[in-house]
């Protein structure tokens, strides 16, 4: 076997092994032996490229935004969230990666006005540290809130207190954030809190519907 003949069978040689004739040629030809060694080396080194690079954090950020837009992210698994809701909403906000909401909130607040963010007709109360103006004293849920709570109470009496507490907390945060924005329309932090608070309240509604739908 000469070099030309060896090269013609080289792909098969690399894929499926060699014959004694081919091996004999390799033993006597440093050029072909070098070629085989190089190709094997390239192939072996190629595996190191498999996970050699890391995407920038921007990829996950963009992905997360899109997943939220499409409703694929629901933040917390349904069956685990009710006990979690008994902890402070502030903890919930701290745990969440919500930086992307800031520009969204700012744009929405500036373009549409704070009033558009009162779909549930929340009452007033429960002063919070960031509120500049004093807030009313008595916690109040809207009629819609009370209807949801009544449904939960009827079907899951043990969860009623949790739901009521979480609903009042969400309403309290909404009022606080709205008050802060009223005092300073450029307060980005409060804009973020407002969006978060409405998302939290929406989640409480969703959970109530999901749980009652399970029965």
């Amino acid at each position, binding site marked *: 076997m000469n070099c030309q003949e060896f090269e013609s069978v080289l792909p098969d040689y690399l894929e499926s092994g060699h014959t004694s004739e081919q091996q004999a040629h390799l033993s006597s030809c440093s*050029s072909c032996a*070098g070629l085989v060694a190089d190709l094997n*080396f390239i192939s072996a080194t190629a595996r190191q490229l498999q996970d*050699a690079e890391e*995407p920038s954090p921007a*990829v996950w950020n963009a*992905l997360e935004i899109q997943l939220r837009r499409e409703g694929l992210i*629901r933040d*917390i698994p349904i069956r685990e969230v009710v006990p979690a809701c008994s902890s402070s909403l502030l903890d919930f906000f701290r745990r969440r990666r919500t930086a992307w909401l800031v520009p969204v909130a700012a744009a929405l607040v500036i373009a549409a006005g704070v009033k558009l963010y009162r779909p549930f007709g929340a009452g007033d109360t429960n002063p919070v540290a960031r509120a500049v103006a004093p807030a009313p004293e008595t916690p109040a849920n809207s009629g819609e809130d009370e209807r949801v709570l009544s449904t939960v109470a009827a079907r899951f009496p043990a969860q009623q207190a949790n739901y009521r507490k979480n609903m009042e907390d969400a309403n309290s945060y909404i009022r606080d954030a709205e008050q802060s924005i009223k005092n300073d329309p450029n307060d980005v932090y409060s804009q973020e809190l407002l969006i978060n608070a409405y998302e939290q309240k929406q989640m409480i509604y969703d959970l109530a519907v999901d749980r009652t739908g399970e029965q």
Partner: protein
Amino acid sequence: MTDAKKLQAEKLTETEAIERAKLGDEEAFHILYGLHKRRVYSLCLRMTGNPASAEDLTQEAFLQLFRKIATFRGESAFSTWLHRMSVNVVLMQLRKKSLPVVPIDETMEGEEESTVRKEPGAPDGRLAGAIDRLHLQRAVDELPPGYRTIFVLHDVEGYEHNEIAGIVGCSIGNSKSQLHKARIKLRELLRMNRAEKAGTGRTGKR
């Protein structure tokens, strides 16, 4: 700490993360992304040679995955499912840009293209020990798109020729032929780069 170790530390298996992702749990999505982001991004980068495009394609691949995750039943490995989806996303993009997925033109060229007779270098100038992953990475980026696709799918990602034939729409023989030519081309590029660096300008055959 590696992603796998983090998973272990959190006592959350990939299977559990998948199930939680089906419920819409953000952390589960993040865990799955963290586990596979390097592999998917590296695949996209190697096949496109463009970091910006690779990031867009990585995002698109994961987005498609997460949109369909509710349908994942575990018949195949999750990673297999994801990587196949990523390959399809990249190939679709290449086709949109009218870049050759299968190197038809190269196939039509004479077989001497792939022969050792044109190879520069000396018997003692083997690549092993002289080049590393980064050199190879740069050389792969210099490959014509068609060669690059086959090489990345086979030698980097580990697909078999019959799988590649199905993925890119060519024959098994064509896949084998293009892979061989891609390796030969890479050897040529690596040896030329090494020669240029050494300042010898050596291009003739030993």
